[in-house]
């Protein structure tokens, strides 16, 4: 597969690994955070931790939109499906997330709610067209990568005059997530960021410049293949060695400084900022999420149906807040691997396979036992 296989080459991996080991200043540790599900996945699936020297440590940040979705938002979707008889369309990633009352979208489906897993927002539009007598609601989650496809669908629905289509808007913003991580009293022990791959193809490299400038932390945007991640780590190590803090781009084949302007304009036309939004594990974050603009209010399921958002507290023993900030590791959480497992996820980090705890549980926990 072109543009895939070459970026997974074992020999090149060895070369980059050797470079990192040789160049990383042996007198210090390098704590690097990535917050892109694709990066978490690449590191876990290819065992990249084995290819890094012991003083270079990867921390999984809040890069998984399923993980940061508050339980209350899933409850909202479940209530709509069960109480209002809508056809609830969602990406497959959310169906297993445990919500209140021992329910999940999958369990709601098992008890008769019409929950449908779709691959693309185009599928949701088709369902709305094919079922004119039913209300169709799309659970719109995701960072800036996934928001433009929702914008396209809403605009199309408006153009077609589709009266039975609406969305539950839970789209969130990446720079806000980074800000929430960094704006902590006393600072955080993170030395650099691996910038997300696909979010950056849309937003470009520009939005990361404030983080390099204001917080003095280097950011290197990395592609989604394991070699990309390794090269980005090398580039970060070099910056940190030199005491530099700039935004660099490893993913030059798909990311420019400006990003995808067409997609950005589409999003700006359809969505506007919410004043504040609750993130699971991070609390309320200002200017971090989107809602539909007034001209598109007819497509806003929160306005159309009587389903208010009710906040639900996470389990007291859950350490996700600290883990998402890189302050604690999954194995330092008291309930990790015992009460909290992928089959029975208690907190956001275990809920999706891209969460820090889930990734560690599935791919890395043998290291602790060895």
């Amino acid at each position, binding site marked *: 597969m072109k*543009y895939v296989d070459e970026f997974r080459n074992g020999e090149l991996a060895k070369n980059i690994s050797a*470079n990192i080991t040789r160049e990383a200043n042996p007198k210090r540790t390098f704590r690097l955070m990535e917050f892109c599900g694709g990066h978490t996945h690449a590191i876990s699936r290819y065992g990249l931790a084995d290819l890094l020297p012991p003083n270079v440590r990867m921390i999984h940040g809040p890069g998984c939109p399923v993980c940061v979705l508050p339980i209350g938002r899933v409850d909202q979707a479940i209530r709509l499906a069960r109480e209002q008889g809508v056809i609830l369309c969602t990406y497959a990633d959310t169906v297993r997330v445990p919500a209140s009352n021992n329910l999940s979208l999958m369990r709601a489906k098992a008890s008769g709610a019409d929950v449908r897993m779709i691959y693309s927002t185009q599928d949701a539009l088709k369902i709305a067209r094919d079922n004119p007598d039913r209300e169709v609601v799309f659970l719109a989650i995701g960072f800036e990568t996934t928001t433009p496809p929702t914008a396209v669908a809403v605009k199309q629905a408006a153009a077609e005059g589709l009266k039975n289509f609406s969305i539950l808007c839970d789209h969130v913003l990446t720079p806000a997530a980074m800000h929430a991580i960094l704006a902590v009293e006393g600072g955080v022990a993170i030395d650099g960021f691996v910038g997300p791959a*696909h979010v950056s193809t849309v937003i470009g490299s520009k939005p990361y410049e404030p983080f390099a400038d204001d917080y003095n932390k280097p950011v290197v945007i990395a592609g989604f293949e394991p070699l990309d991640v390794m090269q980005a780590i090398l580039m970060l190590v070099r910056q940190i060695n030199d005491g530099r803090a700039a935004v660099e781009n*490893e993913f030059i*084949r*798909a990311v420019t400084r400006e990003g995808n302007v067409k997609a950005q304009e589409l999003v700006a036309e359809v969505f506007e900022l919410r004043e504040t939004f609750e993130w699971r594990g991070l609390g309320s974050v200002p200017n971090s999420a989107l809602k539909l603009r007034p001209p598109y209010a007819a497509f806003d399921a929160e306005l159309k149906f009587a389903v208010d958002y009710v906040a639900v507290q996470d389990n007291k023993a859950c350490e996700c807040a600290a883990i998402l900030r890189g302050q604690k590791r999954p194995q330092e959480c008291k309930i990790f691997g015992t009460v909290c497992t992928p089959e029975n996820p208690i907190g956001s980090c275990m809920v999706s396979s891209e969460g820090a705890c889930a990734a560690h549980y599935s791919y890395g926990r043998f290291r602790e036992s060895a």
Partner: protein
Amino acid sequence: MCLAIPALIEELTTPGNAIVNLGGVRKEISLALISDAAVGDYVIVHVGYALQKLDPEEAQRTLEMFAEMGQIDELRSELGVQ
């Protein structure tokens, strides 16, 4: 969720859509988020939409970057140091 793949545009279909090919597997996706896409271009596909075109020259440059010798080695060889 962050799943995206690089695929080749094989055929432009109904306005705004295209059939893309990755390793012999084909699917119809939407081009609504990009402009000037043509048959023969590679695009990054996410949840049924092309997000961005892939630049073949930059891809090649990236692969060359992966194969570079480390900085210290170059310095050492320049200075003739072991």
